[in-house]
């Protein structure tokens, strides 16, 4: 009987979905509506709120008890909200593994429409869960001063982390159990930060004072993965390109060897905010120019190889539209655009280097956020594409992509925090746990492995040709 009622509810909603909606969104909503976990979690959250509301109402009210209730509730709520989202992203994984995604690509749906449909589906699900789950925290928080910005910020953070974890984990592999364990593990780490921030921080508008460096790293890594998926070519699917390995190789060198070698031999340490002024600034600019140039070159080359009249990437589409059929014009314009982006990012770094961290002046630098965000995401999506085209093994491509994204995180965390080790080459995570010397060893080993792998791949490719 219960099943019948749930089906009827799902059918009613399913029939009423408008034609104008993104087809992928419609499909995902329908699948979610038939997921039992959504109903059970919703009921549990509502029941828990009523229970805790009554408990709070009848017990002695002090800050500690409110905090305890809030902490307890958020733990359960976050988990309950996460389960349906995990289930949704598992559907996406199944689609990818069972070739259903390939079938979607035989329709006129663009990759962009498919990705945006999924993000919209996530948004709808998340918003529903949020509406159901927020009355109690809102009631408890509203007993103390709270700003709209604080709520928006926390919601945004929830969203980025939830989406990022569930989607990312399910993009990387095929084994359901393993992915679920990994997902819950990451979720617990991220979730504990969220709860602490939510309960202890309260007034989020106070210039990010509650944000610790690890939290920034998690926050932006999730955000950047999201952006990279949005801007990247076909998610993590490697592009099977064999012909244009020279620009890819140059791209790889630019990305990996040049900054690494320079940072090691010229500065004798990783580059930090302190060393980014003077020659460090010049180096950063050169580095940026090389990286973005090759990134653009590789991206345009790949698009040319695929003989696409209309590239999927929106920015590339603009370049094609403006420059016409001339490949030289496309390269030149693309590089100019990338240089502009790089200059903006470098300028942002310079401002921070010059002035140090000053939250009062945050708004001035805040203007740099959007262009920096777009440019960095674009730049690294190009890198990812190039990397994926070299390394045909998906797992390795994903690994490289993550490394590339962490570069973006470094830039942002340094803009926001001013204290992160910018361009600590391959991992801000590593910079949290190792000192400079260890970091160089870590990066050196990693570079060696990657170089060996590159040589292997290139040999393999040349044999085929």
């Amino acid at each position, binding site marked *: 009987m219960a099943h019948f009622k749930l089906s009827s509810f799902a059918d009613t909603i399913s029939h009423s979905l408008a034609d104008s909606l993104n087809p992928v969104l419609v*499909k995902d909503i329908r699948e979610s509506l038939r997921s039992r976990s959504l109903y059970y979690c919703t009921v549990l959250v509502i029941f828990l709120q009523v229970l805790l509301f009554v408990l709070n109402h009848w017990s002695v009210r002090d800050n500690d008890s409110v905090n305890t209730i809030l902490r307890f509730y958020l733990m359960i709520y976050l988990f309950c909200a996460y389960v349906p989202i995990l289930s949704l992203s598992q*559907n996406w994984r199944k*689609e990818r593994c069972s070739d259903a995604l390939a079938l979607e690509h*035989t329709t006129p749906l663009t990759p962009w429409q498919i990705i945006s449909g999924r993000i919209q589906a996530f948004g709808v699900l998340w918003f529903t869960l949020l509406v159901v789950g927020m009355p109690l925290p809102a009631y408890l928080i509203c007993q103390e001063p709270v700003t709209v910005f604080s709520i928006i910020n926390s919601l945004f953070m929830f969203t980025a982390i939830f989406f990022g974890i569930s989607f990312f984990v399910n993009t990387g592999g095929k084994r359901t159990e393993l992915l679920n364990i990994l997902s819950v593990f990451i979720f617990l780490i991220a979730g504990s930060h969220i709860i602490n921030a939510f309960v202890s921080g309260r007034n989020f508008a106070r210039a990010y004072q509650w944000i610790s460096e690890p939290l920034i790293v998690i926050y932006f890594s999730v955000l950047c993965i999201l952006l990279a998926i949005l801007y990247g070519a076909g998610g993590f699917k490697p592009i*099977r390109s064999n012909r244009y390995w020279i620009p890819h190789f140059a791209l790889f060198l630019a990305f990996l060897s040049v900054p690494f070698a320079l940072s090691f031999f010229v500065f004798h340490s990783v580059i930090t905010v302190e060393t980014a002024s003077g020659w460090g600034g010049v180096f950063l600019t050169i580095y940026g120019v090389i990286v973005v140039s090759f990134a653009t070159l590789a991206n345009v080359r790949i698009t040319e190889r695929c003989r*696409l*009249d209309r590239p999927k990437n929106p920015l590339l589409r603009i370049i094609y539209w403006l420059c016409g059929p001339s490949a030289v014009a496309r390269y030149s314009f693309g590089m100019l655009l990338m240089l502009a982006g790089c200059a903006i990012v470098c300028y942002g770094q310079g401002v921070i280097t010059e002035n140090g961290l000053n939250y009062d002046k945050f708004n001035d630098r805040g203007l740099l956020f959007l262009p920096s965000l777009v440019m960095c995401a674009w730049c690294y999506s190009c890198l990812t594409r190039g990397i994926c085209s070299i390394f045909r093994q998906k797992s390795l491509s994903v690994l490289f992509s993550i490394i590339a994204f962490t570069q973006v995180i470094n830039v942002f965390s340094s803009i926001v925090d001013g204290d992160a080790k910018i361009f600590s080459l391959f991992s801000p995570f590593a910079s949290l746990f190792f000192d400079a010397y260890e970091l160089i060893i870590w990066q050196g080993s990693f570079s060696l492995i990657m170089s060996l792998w590159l040589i292997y791949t290139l040999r393999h490719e040349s044999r085929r040709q």
Partner: protein
Amino acid sequence: MNIEVCELSKSFGDTKALDRISFFLPEGAIVGFVGPNGAGKTTAIRIMAGLEQPDSGKVMLGNLNMIEYPDQVRAQIGFMPDSMPDSDVIRVWEYLDFYARAFGLRGQAKSSAISRVAEFTNLASLPDKMLSELSKGMKQQVSLARVLLHDPKILLLDEPAAGLDPRARIELRACLVKLAQEGKTIFISSHVLSDLDDIATGAVIIEKGKIVSHGKLTDLSASAAGEFCRIVLSLLELNEQILEQINGLELVESAIKSSNKQIMVKIKGGTANYHSAMVQIFMTGLPIIRTERPDAGIEEIFLKSTKGEVN
């Protein structure tokens, strides 16, 4: 709309899946795509459906190059894989609705397209069934319905009859014949050669990534007949003595009993000796009431053309 595949090549690692294959499919034809396992059939079909990029070569649909204009070409093609990969938690109508939306159908156009394909594929009574509740045959019907939603001019079917029971196969064959009569070009990859025999008008035979034979079935059949010239003799009575008598004739390679009163005779030297062999047979004075010369089917053409090797 016709399809022309020109010099298509594709490699996976060291394995050359397709080696400069070329063939032509005329409008309204049902063409069988046959070859041993691992011959490159699925790779070729996936490239034609726009799911894989070839290393070189092109696929032309009419005047459109598949690789240069994938979006325009997709609207003209319906691709059906060997099994229906999709979520089991949605209903049949929701599945069709999704693809109808994906192909840009909205409102009344969408509803009528879904009704049309559901009726054509005998799904009219199943729209509210969950996909998970369907049998393999029903799922193939749903898959065929999905393919037909946007009324494509070309159907690429990869092993459509795989795993189907005899009744479902007959129904599928009937559907395909109807579609060909509507002017659709149908390209079917199949291992079940007898399924193609009755409906195909042409065949493309592939082995080790190379096309070994292609063309109209009548031409291929005539060519194969050169080696496999056979006669079916119907007699008033049939016994071992008669069989031995025919087997003893100079131009008869073999004679086997094919049914109660029928003998399948294979002629030595093929078509060239057909008339002489017939004279020899009638000279025996056996009670022959009817003779028949069947064409070589896809199966024989396939056996003649391929060596059974894989990449």
